[in-house]
């Protein structure tokens, strides 16, 4: 029984990791004041580019890098449309998802069913892996999981303990105030939106290079959208995003293992759980916040200097 629980928890971490990367990416983007509903598309682009480059060059690190670059590039379209052209952020994000889904399906067609020769494999961390229970749950994974362990506190420190992080929070809350004290609002927004896109790309690449590891059309299966909801759940805080990502991962993992445990519940209903759970969480968050989210103040509003 303990073994079962440990393996469920370990699977929770793996299943939560792609969502975590994407959610951290989206979190940065939204902190800068831009809504990005294109996460699903960016993840797919990341997944497919990462996969193709890994297969072609037989190097998963190169694949990961390619996924980051591709994620950043595709998101820069959204950045240009919403920051420079002040386009409707909701619609632009939807376009990004559609385009990303289409492009990834197009590019990946020839690679369906091909295995990656060197996916990111499990590398137990010496010493740490021997901690009872925790070792198996946390330190018996691939390197991308370990990187995400580091990334979360680093991002938190950046946001709350450094001057650039302070400006990141300021440009999303009140760009006019940030502008007034001399922050380069437009440039910073570009930087953070593209950085966030790169992280979403990593989230996708995790699916195709570590989690699956293979390429399937639409393999994100709504994880990008869950990441968007997760950012709200996390109230735009990276630490809470981590908790949320593992919650979702846990539901994912549970579905896998319940059958093994002999619980008969339709997989379709289990698969609904993350989505229903997202809605329940949203409602709870809204109620606790008294109907007002602590979202970045300028989220979704194009910044127009002349409007001030």
């Amino acid at each position, binding site marked *: 029984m303990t073994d079962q629980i440990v393996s469920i928890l370990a699977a929770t971490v793996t299943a939560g990791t792609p969502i975590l990367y994407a959610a951290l990416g989206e979190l940065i983007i939204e902190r800068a004041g831009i809504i990005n*509903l294109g996460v699903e*598309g960016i993840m797919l682009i990341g997944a497919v580019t990462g996969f193709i480059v890994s297969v072609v060059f037989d190097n998963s690190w190169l694949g990961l890098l390619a996924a980051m670059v591709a994620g950043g590039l595709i998101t820069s*379209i959204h950045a*240009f*449309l919403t920051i420079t*052209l*002040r*386009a*409707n952020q*909701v*619609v*632009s994000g*939807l*376009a*990004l*998802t*559609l*385009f*990303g*889904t*289409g*492009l*990834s*399906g*197009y*590019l990946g*067609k020839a690679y369906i069913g091909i295995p990656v020769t060197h996916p990111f494999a499990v590398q137990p961390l010496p010493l740490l892996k021997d901690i009872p229970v925790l070792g198996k749950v946390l330190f018996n994974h691939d390197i991308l999981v370990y990187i995400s362990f580091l990334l979360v506190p680093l991002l938190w420190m950046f946001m709350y303990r450094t001057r650039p992080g302070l400006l990141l929070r300021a440009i999303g809350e009140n760009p006019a105030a940030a502008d007034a004290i001399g922050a380069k609002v437009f440039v910073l927004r570009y930087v953070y939106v593209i950085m966030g896109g790169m992280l979403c790309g990593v989230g996708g690449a995790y699916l195709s290079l570590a989690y699956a590891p293979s390429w399937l*059309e639409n393999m994100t299966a*709504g994880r990008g*959208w869950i990441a*968007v*909801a997760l950012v*709200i759940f996390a109230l735009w805080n990276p630490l809470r995003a981590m908790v949320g990502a593992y919650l979702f991962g846990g539901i994912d993992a549970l579905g896998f293992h319940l059958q093994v445990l002999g619980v008969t519940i*339709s997989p*379709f*209903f289990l*698969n*609904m759980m993350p*989505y*229903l759970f*997202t*809605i329940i969480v*949203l*409602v709870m968050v*809204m*109620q606790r916040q008294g*109907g*007002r989210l602590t979202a970045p103040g300028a989220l979704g509003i194009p910044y127009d200097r002349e409007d001030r």
Partner: protein
Amino acid sequence: MFVPVRLEKRLVPSPVMRIMVPLVSVIMALVFCGIFLAITGRDPLEVYAAMFAGALGSAYGLSETVVKAIPLMLCALGISVAFRMQLWNIGAEGQFYIGAFAATWLPLTFPNLPGYVMIPGMILLGLAAGAMWAFIPAYLRAKSNVNEIITTLMFNYVGILLVDYFVYGPWRDPKGLNFPLTARFADAAILPTFGASRIHIGIVFALVLVFILLVAFKYSRWGYEIRVIGQSERAAAYAGMNIQRSIFYVMLISGAISGLAGMAEVSGIAGRLQPGLSPGYGYTAIIIAWLSKLNPLAIVLVSLLFGVLQVGGYLVQTFGVPATVASMVQGAILFFVVGGEIFINYSIKIASRKEALTEND
């Protein structure tokens, strides 16, 4: 800004740009996607030619284009109702599936009903189920201000999984060789078609709806209220309108129309409920609604254009080009249109150096 370019808000959106932007966008999107095609070693012109020739060059292609355009039109009409009030219902896909699901219940449970009971019954069920699927997001939005984008979207996945559960489980046809399909509907549950083509009277639903919405938007009290609330909630409150109630009804109507689309598809095309009934009609319809500026007549035209892309994309698969090229082009069109909005709403002035310096006033 370093470049001496200034954006000046236009008082009236430019009418020329209003026409030019969508047209140029389609062309630019084709060029943009052509680059990807070219990079991957295909001749874009050849692919596009094959797409358009396939969709428009034969009676079969043309009728398939219309067949694909029907669900797109219906969903886009539904979406346009919500968008008019700035309600971002992106749950058409789920509402479509649930509409189809509810409509399926009737022929499966009462296979022997006569057509004049069966079809209207299925229509009502489709409408009601679509509305019901929008009910919870509508309720949460009106009462607790929960973002309808996320809720409608999550309900898409739930709706699709619910349908999957039934077709893989309780509703699976015992004689279906274990395929995840329901039994084929009785003839009385199949929408009549025009001649030998697959074009079914769903097109009539769509056109009637276009008419109703045109009238409603222009001539009804309700249309007037959505217009006002969509533009300014404060002015609406000032005029004594009930905003929460409107949010509610608009979401329900929007869902009902997408539910009808699902009913029409399952009854007019598939003849049975099956997974993958919609290749993302509900999402494509969002773009159509947006491109059409929520105008019902424009929705018909744009849906036909997207039908062409869809059928074309399907047909070029025989050349070994994946069908997803269609959604790629669609996404790209949306990029260009969204970006092009700026030309409609702003005029771009090149400021002289002196002007650029004395700006800021």
